[in-house]
């Protein structure tokens, strides 16, 4: 009898030893591979931006930083980039929709790792970091300035610094004080009255403002989190220490994220984004103008004179492959928005392109229910998560902030 028991024990032990040691393995090999691909240590070093020859010039970044925080860079001297992109708030503003010179229609985006994006804004209507920076400067709801005024301002305030980086400023003496092809009707009329050479001079100074700001933004990178420490320990097989130990709830949340809830199909890679556009059925906000997302951005980025194919790009056209191969039509881009990074998300409610959800609980409840989109077709399908599973997903998302 006792011998039989010992034989049974031996059998059981031999099998246990072979099938993953003692105790249940927490993650399958496939899960481990996915988790490793999300860790910050897999983030490649930042590629050079050949469309901006000043992208890695320290003097350009320094001037860009000055401009980013300078309220002088706005129509009435009250708004800078940092009014909305606050340095101590992950470069966002905690509001459902940003407020500049006026109330805007979209949520301010955080800037960690922004230089790695192929597309900018929630709808990707700009294709480079430097072309993006020019947009809020002239947006009547944001900084509400105009490019002629910015050129004069740069000459007056930062002329010497500008010239040390970009070479001699053009002769602006005959350039009107206020003019822009995108401004008020009066500003447009003045712009149309300028010579092509004057317009070109102003556009070039304007593009260089964008290139300096972009050089500064390249230094804003995501930080290591508890999740990254956990993921590295998991990958190396080291015993997790201190706060790198995940609670059973956080582990369940991570398993759902890479498994049944399939969040990782869009929120993937070390930045938790596929850099692509998806309709996820997020409802529009009452009272805001119609917002159709990516489908309306396609024509805008194609028409932008500062896009990669335009004459203000440095380097050659081989940098423009994303623009050349973008999806231009089809049902999938209606109300499609860029997948945001989830790093730091727990610390910056509200969520989505117009701040539709005020907590992560609401976000996860949205994915669980997956309502149809008001326009276009949502790519997410109901997950019918239990209360415990929803809480676990939220617990996991918080590990991307600690």
């Amino acid at each position, binding site marked *: 009898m006792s011998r039989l028991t010992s034989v049974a024990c031996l059998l059981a032990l031999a099998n246990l030893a072979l099938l993953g040691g003692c105790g249940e393995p927490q993650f399958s090999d496939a899960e481990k591979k996915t988790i490793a691909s999300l860790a910050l240590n897999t983030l490649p070093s930042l590629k050079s931006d050949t469309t901006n020859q000043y992208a890695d010039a320290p003097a350009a970044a320094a001037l860009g930083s000055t401009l980013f925080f300078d309220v002088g860079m706005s129509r009435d001297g009250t708004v800078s980039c940092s009014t909305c992109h606050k340095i101590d708030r992950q470069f966002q503003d905690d509001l459902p929709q940003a407020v500049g010179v006026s109330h805007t229609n979209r949520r301010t985006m955080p800037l960690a790792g922004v230089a790695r994006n192929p597309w900018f804004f929630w709808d990707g209507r700009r294709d480079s970091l430097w072309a993006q920076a020019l947009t809020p400067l002239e947006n009547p709801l944001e900084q509400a300035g105009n490019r002629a005024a910015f050129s004069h301002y740069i000459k007056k305030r930062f002329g010497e610094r500008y010239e040390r980086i970009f070479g001699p400023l053009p002769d602006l003496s005959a350039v009107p004080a206020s003019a822009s092809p995108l401004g008020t009707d009066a500003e447009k009329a003045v712009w149309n009255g300028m010579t092509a050479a004057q317009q070109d001079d102003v556009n070039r100074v304007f593009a260089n403002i964008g290139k300096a700001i972009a050089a500064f933004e390249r230094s804003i990178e995501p930080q290591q989190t508890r999740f990254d420490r956990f993921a590295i320990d998991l990958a190396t097989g080291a015993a997790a220490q201190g706060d790198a130990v995940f609670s059973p709830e956080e582990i369940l949340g991570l398993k759902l994220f890479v498994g049944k809830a399939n969040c990782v199909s869009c929120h993937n890679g070390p930045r938790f984004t596929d850099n692509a556009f998806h309709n996820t059925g997020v409802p529009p906000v009452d009272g805001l103008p119609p917002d159709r997302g990516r489908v309306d951005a396609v024509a805008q980025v194609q028409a932008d004179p500062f896009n990669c194919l335009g004459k203000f790009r440095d380097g050659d056209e081989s940098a423009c492959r994303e623009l050349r*191969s*973008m999806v231009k039509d089809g049902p999938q881009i209606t109300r499609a928005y860029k997948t945001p990074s989830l790093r730091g998300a727990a610390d910056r409610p509200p969520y989505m392109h117009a701040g539709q959800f005020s907590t992560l609980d609401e976000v996860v409840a949205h994915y669980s229910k997956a309502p149809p989109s008001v326009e276009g077709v949502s790519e997410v399908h109901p997950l019918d998560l239990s209360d415990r599973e929803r809480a676990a997903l939220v617990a996991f998302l918080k590990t991307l902030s600690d």
Partner: protein
Amino acid sequence: MASIWRYILAGLGLAALLLGIVAAVYLTLPPSASGPDLSRSKKTANGLFVASFEPEHGVVRQGELQSWLLTLKTAAGAPVEGAAITVSGGMPQHDHGLPTSPQATDYLGEGRYRIDGVKFTMSGWWQLHFSISAAAGSDSVVFNIVL
């Protein structure tokens, strides 16, 4: 007496070990269920051409904009020149299309066409569908790629 039992025990232990190994190997083998056809070279639907599709720089990387090479030969093995190629595709299990719109950008000679702007944004089963028109006629081919 005791030593015989020890041998029997050891034998049983060994048998258990073998069983365990077999079980472990069996459990970690990829499921044999018939997945999509992953061949990188095949006849086009109506047999007009033989098409091969390979990443230009060897490896497929998720999330990276890559160029691939589509090589077209006639059934007799002659390179197909001057073909007009359109590309579409998506993920059959997620019913969504491609995140980019790849295009034939260059003819590299010997029936080789560069297909630029290919990007696979998530793991899983992707399909690329090519419509090909050349002197010999029009045909199409589908390649499956699993990441």
